[in-house]
């Protein structure tokens, strides 16, 4: 089984991705591996715009038919937008986890925190090992 691991972003050990899109703003979502492990996603709970989280904080929950999984903040920051599409069509996360299935947009309080995250190669290796 091979999962997509785009090289244009960073990854957490807990299967989230973060991609800087503009200045100090970044999108956050879960990986192809994560959506595959969860399988059919039926519910995504996201924070309010304006909430702030530190790296590692739980900012939301994703639930599949089988289980609920916490969403962990890859880096500290304030939520500036959430993907409201996921409210009625959470299955987008299964179909397109890296683009249409993004979850929150954050203003990073310290972009250098991203240096501590996994790059695509390291994350791809982790997926192989976990499988």
């Amino acid at each position, binding site marked *: 089984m091979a999962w997509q691991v785009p090289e244009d972003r960073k990854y957490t050990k807990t299967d989230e991705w973060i991609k800087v899109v503009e200045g100090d703003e970044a999108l956050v979502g879960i990986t192809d591996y994560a959506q595959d492990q969860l*399988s*059919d996603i*039926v*519910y995504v*709970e996201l924070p309010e715009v304006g909430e702030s989280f530190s790296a590692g904080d739980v900012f939301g*929950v994703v*639930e*599949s*038919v*089988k289980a*609920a999984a916490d969403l962990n903040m890859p880096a500290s920051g304030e939520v500036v937008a959430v993907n409201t599409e996921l*409210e009625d069509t959470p299955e987008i996360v299964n179909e397109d986890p890296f683009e249409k299935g993004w979850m929150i947009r954050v203003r990073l309080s310290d972009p250098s925190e991203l240096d501590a995250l996994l790059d695509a190669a390291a994350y791809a290796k982790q997926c192989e090992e976990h499988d």
Partner: protein
Amino acid sequence: MELKRTNLYDTHVKLGARMVPFAGWEMPVQYTSPLEEHATVRSAAGLFDIDHMGQVIVEGPDALDFLQYMVTSDPSTLAEWEASYSLLCYADGGTVDDIFIYRLPEYFYVVVNAANLAKDVKWLRAHTPGFDVTVTDVSEETYMLAFQGPKAQEVLQSICDVDLSNVPFHASARGRVAGVECLIGNTGYTGEYGYELFFDASQAETVWNAILEAGEPHGVKPIGLAARDSLRFEPCLPLYGHELNADISPLEAGLGFAVRTNKGDFIGRDALLKQRLEGPPRKLVCLEMVDRGVPREHYEVIVDGQKGVVTSGMFAPTVESYAAMALIPRELAEIGKEVEVVIRGKPRKARIVKRPFYIPAYRR
């Protein structure tokens, strides 16, 4: 404990199944997607490896008297080849297991939950003194498959030498499926019409492959445990360890139809009769979320300031709602009442709705 594998383990892996531990077994939880598999059973038919389930033969001159004393239903009402849902209870009315009893010409054939097999056999044997009866666990040599859905009869008929139109709901027959001698029960656990097959464990692959092959043009697919759970959840069929356990009586779980307190003495009768007359302390209700959120097992339910608990909860795929079964104080169990389910520390609104979420095909 080492996990057991069914004779179809390699077949499942080849089909791309994801294998998970369940009740001491390594079982397929999904082949493609639980939602797709769920829809397949509701609209066409699906094949389930449920060999983890246990089978016990109760035979001897006192077999009927013995079962009458052990179970809550009345097996004397079963004609030969008929089958019915039943329960084993403790003296206090708590549940040992929920079971299916087939009355066959030679003996009673009892199907039990995988996780409870050893406990059930021990419980049954502990009560045989005084009865001329033997209790034999035949689970090891018996294979069990379920084939469920609106297309199940047509597909099975094409590879079976019994006229299935002569086997009504909750009846059974012996015959050959793909040349393999089977006990065929018109029974199941999905809310659809379908069959459960029992046969020699060495023939598992033959029967499995024959059904998938015959079913292919009809859209028949293998189905994993995740869909098995959502399929049984929608029609509110109880799952032991969730809606039933040693602390939950069948009357609390809404299974009064299988409790015959007027049939004579049986283990648990006094306690169950008292509950029937006075009302059981709790009642299993159906909830649908009003606020957003997925209710899950063990979540707290608040009803008029009193507490209850979710026994099973999920996104119910056919009815497309976030739904739960929950045990709450009986006197508060009113259809339409608003309650709260505590989801990750936050109370979320839900409503008590009519049971079940999905009306089984055989009750329409």
